[in-house]
């Protein structure tokens, strides 16, 4: 099977990859030369090629998280050449292609760095803190069944669209990785504002904002410095407006909720 671009020349690369045995062992950057990489490959396919070479040599392949390889599951991560998900904006690592690199490049690949995201192995980190934040209130408390007809709750299209924009967060953690404070505000704000905008979510909006922020703090994420790095590196373009909305919701909730 020939490539889609027959003129694309294969590249030789030098990879510097973070290798770490497990959570309790110190890690280090290890250098791997890699030859003959097609520019049409995705970044993860390039790592697949490296891993096959390592396996054939009897070495331990590089562990990295990935699943859908379509940019939607949020499983892939990787801090590539000093950027979360690599140099292309609005792109997850799995959708990053090697044509954005050049022959002879050295590529540094590190895991997300945050106290709340401890390294499991090599490039795999533990993002369960995100799940715990969602468990603290990222839902509308309705049981299955007994809900009104879907069209009984009209929602202005503009609001529905804005809520959708916030709801597209894939939970990859690039915001935390890119933030100088390893803050999870963009992630938390996406869910809080999605539900705060919709009538279904308004009922519990106050408690939700209070509880999710409390859990975010417990997990050890940093505070927001409004640098905007999170939104700039977010592969799905979650807006900073959500953080402002979270701040507003949180302050309003703290001032007026009955939770003392």
């Amino acid at each position: 099977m020939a490539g889609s671009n027959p003129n694309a020349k294969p590249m030789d690369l030098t990879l510097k990859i973070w290798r770490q045995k497990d959570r309790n062992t110190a890690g280090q950057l290890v250098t791997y030369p890699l030859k003959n990489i097609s520019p049409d490959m995705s970044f993860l396919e390039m790592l697949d090629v490296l891993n096959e070479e390592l396996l054939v040599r009897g070495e331990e392949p590089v562990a990295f998280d990935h699943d859908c390889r379509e940019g939607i599951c949020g499983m892939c991560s990787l801090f590539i050449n000093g950027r979360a998900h690599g140099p292309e904006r609005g792109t997850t690592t799995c959708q990053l292609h090697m044509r954005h690199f050049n022959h002879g490049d050295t590529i540094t690949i590190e895991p997300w760095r945050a106290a709340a995201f401890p390294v499991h192995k090599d490039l795999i980190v533990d993002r369960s803190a995100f799940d715990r934040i969602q468990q603290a209130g990222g839902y509308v408390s309705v049981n299955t069944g007994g809900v009104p007809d879907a069209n009984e709750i009209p929602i202005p299209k503009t609001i529905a669209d804005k809520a959708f924009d916030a709801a597209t967060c894939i939970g990859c953690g690039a915001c935390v990785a890119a933030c100088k404070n390893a803050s999870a505000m963009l992630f938390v704000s996406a869910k809080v504002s999605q539900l705060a905008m919709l009538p279904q979510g308004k009922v519990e909006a106050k408690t939700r904002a209070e509880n999710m922020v409390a859990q975010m703090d417990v997990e050890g994420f940093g505070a927001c410095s409004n640098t905007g790095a999170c939104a700039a590196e977010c592969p799905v373009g979650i807006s900073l407006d959500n953080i402002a909305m979270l701040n507003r919701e949180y302050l309003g909730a703290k001032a007026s909720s009955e939770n003392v």
Partner: protein
Amino acid sequence: MILDSKIPEGALAEKWDKHKFNVKLVNPANKRKYDIIVVGTGLAGASAAATLGELGYNVKAFCFQDSPRRAHSIAAQGGINAAKNYQNDGDSIFRLFYDTIKGGDYRAREANVYRLAQVSVNIIDQCVAQGVPFAREYGGLLANRSFGGAQVSRTFYARGQTGQQLLLGAYSALNRQIAYGKVKMYPRTEMLDLVMVDGKARGIVVRNLITGKIESHSAHAVVLATGGYGNVFFLSTNAMGSNATAAWRAHKKGALFANPCFTQIHPTCIPVSGEYQSKLTLMSESLRNDGRVWVPKTVEIAQRLRKGEITVNDIKEEDRDYYLERKYPAFGNLVPRDVASRNAKLMCDEGRGVGASGLAVYLDFADAIRREGQPAIAAKYGNLFDMYAKITDENPYEKPMRIYPAVHYTMGGLWVDYNLMTNIPGLYATGECNFSDHGANRLGASALMQGLADGYFVIPYTIGDYLAQTPYDKVSVDHPAFKEAEQNVKATTDRLLAIKGNRTVDDFHKALGLLMWDYCGMARNAEGLQFAKHEIRKLRDEFWQNVKVTGVNEELNQTLEKAHRVADFLELGELMVDDALNRNESCGGHFREEYQTPENEALRDDENYAYVAAWEFTGVGNEPVLHKEELKFENVKLTQRSYK
């Protein structure tokens, strides 16, 4: 073994309501005495775990991903069907039922499909109540679109990310139950065996993917919601981790596997670009609403195009063959997936394929852009166009997209009765993991519907019926059945690690995938299938002698994880071939070249093959035993599907 589908008596429209009344209930205070295991947290699993938790059962939920939100349901793009008839365009529960049965080429159970259509309306209500941001009209009400060749607009959608939004809805419901302590979540944990005590499913053995620890979990019932087995083909639109291991190991413990040869090949995927390709990316079927599919009229033009002597825009209008519009004037580019896929293959087989490999056809938006303007097209498909450009480095606004069919969904799966219970008491299968609702071909926007129908609205009733007749007694994980299963898992793992051969797991997987694609893919014939069966056996033998798995069990070991999965694919692949060989007819996604009309359309044999082929495992390398469940059609007339 006699397969009892347990379809309730009575008129089609009343079966489910009557059944809901007839099932036994578990007293609210007693629900907490029952433990239920749910494996998989996609739409079917997350919705089931959440709902069962709400009802008061103790639920343990497992997924191999790092979070339940990653399940591959998240990647579904187009939408979810529901017979709401909000558009007043003639839709009804019966029409959705009829379309699904017909689309499935009359190889699905009437009663199951009717129930699916009935509860479809509840799903939309439920999701909206959860805060799922479906597309809306300016008046604030929900928007619909026509999808996958349906003649009515019954598809609800959230841009091109409907699966994501629905899954996050189910995930949020699941999170709520986790917070309440009713569901205990085990992420990064893979089921490796089913444990049976006294002939009933009583638990599972899992491997903690971080520590490698083999652990047992006991329960009163086990629900498998582990998705499909499309990754048998190595290249598919499935996620890299999607696997058949849980279902296959249940099969090896006695659960029948039904219609394994029914695989859906999706027509609009981005073509393969090289040997290194790790997966295929789907472009939503909605693109066919505006895109026109064509190939060059002659082999000669196609050849010049492939050699790069001319470019696509050099080909004159009269030299383009819009073959779907030509062959199917009524449905045109919107013919069902199996028809669209097979025709793309036919064109490429004729030598009229495009792209460097010749394995692609064009999907052209030039007319739509001329008609509606680029901004309108960008508003509809912008994210898909961007995705295409990102992957191929080509601008689809200027050059037609190149597309080719790819394995997408598996209609086959564990055999289940009307209650979604397999032939093993206490073992349930939901969503893509079971075989029940889509027959030989699934319609677009119906997978999300089935996953959520099973999880939110079917299993919560039917599992209660079983539990109400089950004593509260728990089985200890020290029971010999658990110990034996653990030993077996450890033995398999040790064996994989001890081989220390020369060929990597991926290499075996790719070889299997190629065999399956070439001989058990879009078109099959007896000779090819027999050859494939022989080759798969050879490959499997080599796997167990020459596979190379590094590292140890007691660590995060992705190679070992893959080795377990590929070992199962190597067995399942053979069963798919067996099933395809057995079914001497063409229907839906199963196209046997020997059985076609003069116009190359699928030729069904209702007299001899209107049955569900449910296979019983008899040992690796032994011939499986076929059990037939005859399909009775009392409410629809079997006709030759025609989209002309």
